[in-house]
């Protein structure tokens, strides 16, 4: 495979020191699965942490020996000679706490009860994730990241790194991101959660014991989410008003191509994703707001950041619009941080951050090339 990091394997880190969450709840022990690509240099100054978004995980680049078709979700961005160049950087991807890809989450067994955590799994915030990621960094001997990178909810984690651990991150790349969700965004998440919470198979979050999965709710949640990740133009382009059977059936079956596509996406997602994880992730998005503890003032919230920043937005992203990205840029300017901001012309809505596009990749490459020079110094 061209420019791929090649065969990778997931690793598992166990933490036995209790982690107390922002909510006051705690986990006495937990595990994180992660993957690494490239080589950590002698002074451990070339590490990049990649934070994932709502449905992401630790498998960011490369493929597995026993499953070569399973390619990492950001493989186009990360690899030898790619914008996040694994010839220069040691790149870490992890599955966040509360996830459903191997790290401790709602479907894991609670050692206290011997049953899956289910509804008892603590509600997690972006701050909590960053705290757990810092422990992974400690374990790997990384005192300071060259960069923390993320798109969407991943971008929020990258921003939070500069606030929770100002000394431990030199550069933050926040892509397709906003400093906090708007009421409209929270509303979308609420509808998605309502779909899951209202599914009779949800059983208050303890569906594992009933050997069922709230597929219907999870599927609806994903269908709604998926609409908001695309742009109207892309949907019009891809599906228009195309009919599967070429004519109206005057019924409620799948007729329009867009219906078929959304249901397929919903089914695919509901088959592997955990409903409790979906609830956790959307709630973490809703709660995130660095200004929360500063009277709503982002300028004050970012006063403690020490990193340099690259902020990137996409023109057709209406979930995290360019205007919202500028709300990240302004407090950074106010606090005289080094910051660059690029607005990428793209048709693909919020999902643009996952897609290869020359200008987008050139921006990331140019930025990280300089970061690499500074790490090599």
């Amino acid at each position, binding site marked *: 495979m061209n420019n791929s990091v090649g065969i990778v394997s997931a690793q598992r880190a166990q933490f036995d020191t209790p982690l107390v969450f922002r909510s006051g709840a705690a986990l006495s022990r937990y595990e994180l699965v992660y993957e690494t690509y490239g080589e950590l240099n002698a002074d451990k100054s070339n590490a990049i942490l990649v934070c994932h978004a709502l449905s992401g995980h630790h498998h960011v680049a490369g493929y597995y020996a026993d499953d070569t078709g399973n390619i990492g979700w950001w493989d186009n961005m990360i690899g030898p000679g790619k914008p996040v160049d694994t010839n220069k950087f040691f790149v870490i991807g992890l599955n966040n706490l509360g996830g459903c890809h191997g790290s401790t989450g709602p479907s894991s067994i609670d050692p206290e009860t011997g049953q899956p955590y289910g509804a008892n799994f603590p509600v997690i915030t972006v701050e909590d994730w960053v705290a757990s990621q810092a422990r992974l960094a400690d374990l790997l001997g990384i005192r300071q990241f060259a960069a923390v990178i993320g798109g969407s909810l991943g971008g929020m984690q990258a921003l939070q790194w500069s606030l929770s651990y100002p000394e431990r991150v030199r550069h933050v790349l926040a892509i397709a991101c906003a400093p906090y969700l708007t009421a409209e965004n929270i509303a979308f998440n609420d509808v998605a959660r309502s779909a899951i919470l209202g599914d009779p198979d949800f059983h208050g979050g303890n569906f594992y014991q009933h050997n069922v999965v709230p597929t219907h709710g999870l599927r609806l949640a994903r269908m709604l989410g998926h609409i908001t990740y695309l742009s109207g133009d892309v949907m019009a382009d891809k599906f228009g008003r195309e009919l599967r059977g070429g004519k109206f059936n005057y019924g409620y079956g799948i007729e329009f191509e867009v219906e078929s596509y959304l249901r397929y996406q919903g089914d695919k997602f509901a088959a592997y994703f955990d409903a409790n994880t979906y609830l956790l992730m959307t709630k973490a998005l809703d709660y995130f707001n660095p200004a929360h503890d500063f009277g709503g003032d982002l300028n004050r919230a970012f006063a403690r950041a020490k990193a340099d920043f690259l902020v990137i937005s996409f023109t057709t992203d209406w979930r995290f619009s360019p205007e919202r990205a500028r709300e990240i*840029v302004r407090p950074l*300017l106010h606090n005289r941080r080094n910051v660059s901001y690029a607005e990428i012309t793209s048709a693909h809505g919020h999902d643009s951050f996952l897609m290869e596009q020359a200008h987008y990749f*050139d921006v990331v490459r140019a930025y990280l090339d300089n970061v690499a020079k500074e790490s090599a110094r």
Partner: protein
Amino acid sequence: MTQNDIARLAAERPDFAAIAAWIPRGASVLDLGCGDGSLLRYLRETRAVRGYGVEINDLDIVSCIANGVNVIHDDLESGLSDFEDGSFDFVILSQTLQATRHTEALIREMLRVGREGIVSFPNFGYWRNRLGVLRGNMPVSSELPYQWYDTPNVHLCTLHDFESFCRNHNVAVLERRVMTGEREVSMLPNLLGSTAVYRFQRGL
């Protein structure tokens, strides 16, 4: 940036040295229409400024980032709303004034965001330009390298025009330098100078 790069830039863009001469070490600078970030780099190397550029062209934005220059993607024509009042010592508009559509509003924005403004522009009153027009053609030169049909320049002006603009808009000119190539012009500047650089602030 090596000493050679600095010398090369100074030779290519004589207005850079003129601008740098006005900027004290460590000043904060906002460069509007910063292109590939050359001026900010030059000022960083020669004056240790803390600077940001504003640019709309994709390729230039990548060049700025590659040059290690802070750049904010924005359209100058829509104002400078990302920047707070009085947040910079200097706001620079270098060889861009003539290509702006809302020139009046932009100068106002420069003086809202910056303590002082600096502009450089090609002097349309330069004798070679006058001669071109006298001969019946729009002038084309190293300062005005475009044909009439592909020029981005919509608001060309002379030194006299700019100065009367300042008088009429409560803009106080603090200093002016007029050049032809690297040579300073003091006699009949509106006729003999090809490039003008002005430093100004809000009038009282």
